[in-house]
């Protein structure tokens, strides 16, 4: 067998910028998740509340346009779609359950399989570093989070503006856009880092789901119990989803309840600590080979 027989040809063209190495990783990560049927089930569930909200805003706009006198009445009935910052914040918060389920199952596909099946050797033997891999995967997870929270919230925001007061709404409520993006970014960052860390140490689906449930169900429940037992509200910080919501409230510029805002800065510290510790936990797992002395 010769090189001519297998029609081998060389290749020598200009290479792309090396810092773009994260992009194919992020794209492939998303592709892997989108190919799974279970993802579409969760996305379908996530879109239910979005569709409900979308229809509510549409209905409200139609009713108030046709009968402006009904506005107060309609606002009273459809109180969850007032177009204020709370509307979008509460919508994003309500997406939590489905987002958690989606991430729990996506974690093994996105990260766990690479650790478990030796995919790390495939990635890291190329012209990328560990940080490219990390950024690429975090972006994949971040996009999934955004797909169920930030993007629908943005769609609702623009729908509300376009169907109601148009330009005036956008002009008067631009801080809502900042709030949606800020809350969405915080959600994406915290959840991506945490999922990556858990999936890198628990690469199989079942242990990962159990750990995920532990973080988002058992820890908050424990926090509530400890708060009741000790009387200290600081125990509520154990609920990461609640911490992120508080940061989201701050992003929307909403006043919130003063008692809740007491915990704003501690919540920020908890969220930042989770991100930093997660990345610190991930880095030792990003090796091309396992060392078995």
């Amino acid at each position, binding site marked *: 067998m010769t090189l001519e027989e297998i029609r*081998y040809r060389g290749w020598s063209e200009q290479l792309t910028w*090396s810092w773009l190495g994260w992009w194919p990783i992020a794209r492939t990560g998303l592709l892997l998740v989108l190919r799974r049927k279970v993802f579409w089930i969760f996305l379908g569930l996530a879109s239910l509340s979005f569709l409900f909200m979308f229809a509510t805003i549409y209905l409200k706009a139609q009713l108030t346009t046709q009968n402006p006198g009904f506005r107060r009445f309609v606002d009273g009935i459809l109180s969850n779609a007032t177009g204020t910052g709370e509307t979008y914040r509460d919508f994003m918060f309500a997406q939590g359950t489905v987002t958690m389920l989606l991430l729990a199952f996506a974690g093994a596909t996105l990260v766990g399989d690479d650790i478990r099946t030796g995919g790390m050797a495939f990635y890291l033997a190329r012209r990328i570093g560990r940080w490219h891999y990390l950024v690429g995967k975090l972006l994949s997870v971040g996009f999934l989070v955004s797909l169920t929270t930030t993007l629908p919230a943005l769609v609702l925001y623009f729908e509300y503006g376009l169907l109601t007061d148009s330009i005036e709404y956008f002009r008067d409520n631009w801080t809502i856009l900042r709030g949606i993006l800020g809350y969405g970014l915080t959600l994406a960052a915290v959840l991506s880092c945490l999922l990556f860390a858990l999936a890198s140490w628990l690469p199989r689906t079942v242990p990962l789901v159990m750990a995920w449930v532990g973080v988002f169900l058992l820890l908050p429940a424990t926090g509530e119990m400890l708060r009741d037992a000790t009387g200290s509200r600081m125990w509520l910080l154990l609920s990461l989803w609640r911490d992120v919501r508080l940061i989201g409230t701050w992003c929307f510029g909403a006043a919130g309840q003063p008692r809740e805002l007491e915990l704003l800065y501690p919540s920020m510290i908890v969220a930042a600590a989770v991100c930093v510790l997660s990345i610190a936990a991930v880095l030792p797992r990003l090796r091309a080979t396992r*060392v078995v*002395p």
Partner: protein
Amino acid sequence: MALVLELAAVSHWYGSFRALTEVDLRLEAGPIGLVGQNGAGKSTLMQILLGLIRPTQGQARVLGLDARTAGMRLRSRVGYMPDRNALIPGLNGIEYVALAGEMCGMPRRQALRRAHETLSHLGLEDARYRRLDQYSLGMSQRLKLAATLVHDPDLLLLDEPTSGLDPEGRAAMLNLLGTLARRPGKSLLLASHLLGDIERVCGSAIILDKGRVLSVGRIETLRAARQRGYRLRWDGVGGPFLDTLRRHGVRIEAHRDLVRELPGEPTGGAIGGGLNSGGLNSGGLNSGGLNSGGLNSGGLNSGGLNSGGLNSGGAIGPVVGGEARVIVPAEWRTREFFAAAVAQGVTLQMLSAEEEDLDAVYHRLIGGVSDRQAAFATPAGADARAASSDAQAAGTDARAAGEAR
């Protein structure tokens, strides 16, 4: 010729475990083998060459680039095929190879086109849209090779590319690697624990053992270090015979005593007749052994024990003998075995030359036990039974030969 690899006193520790010790290498372009048993340090060395691990001590330059500082640039010119699975479940063949190309810095469109080409080179064009979890082991290995080749690297680092393949798949893979090793201006470093694989693809080899380089050089040089060995089987008391051989510089690698049951119709006084009369001692060597064509014509087997023992006297029953594997000096001639046998009154039943293959040379260099040596180290009872069945087979052959005559 430009140096592909330059390693100066490279050592690497994993905690308290020393994976590499003072490795010095200067290798020119071309196909190079890296041989070593599991845990010899092959994979660690490859990681260092890829810039994925910084050596604890020493300097490593690959393709003129410092592996410590230019890891990413280096990896754009190097293709690495890991020994582990390293597949990404959920992707299909073309996506996997194109992704590898993109991550090596190829623009997406070119990576896709090149992925199609590479899969076609390696005979996977029909499987390119198949999911990776449906690939057989042989196909997976070729796919990994395609992902390694997609950006046409200057240096291929292949870690155990034949591991897990059946003999046919292994031969096909080695054939392919042999072809790829001839890419003009390109180099290949093939790591394996099988020297036979290296021999088929590479012109030179590095032998690594417990993190140290034992030998570096051309495969021909390694071949020249081969020893001539023989496997002997005799009937009679072997001690004096082996002592005679030792005095002539023959090294006895392994030996054991055998008690064999001979097939045939038992008759009175068979053992004594068989052993002491012409059957074993005189008939063997003189009639069948040396005079009628020696080793190759089967003279030893038919003329020795069987013609004298079975055919003439009907000697049946347990026969004392032995078996040994010996290494002879370079100037040794085969007939000296017969002379020694005659002198010590034993009958050679079998004498077969065993030229040491490169794997055995390699195991000798690293002080391990080759498969052939290991075969001698099996339990004595099992060996005796095996030898007995050998003798029965030989007896059957001899009877057939007698009937033909």
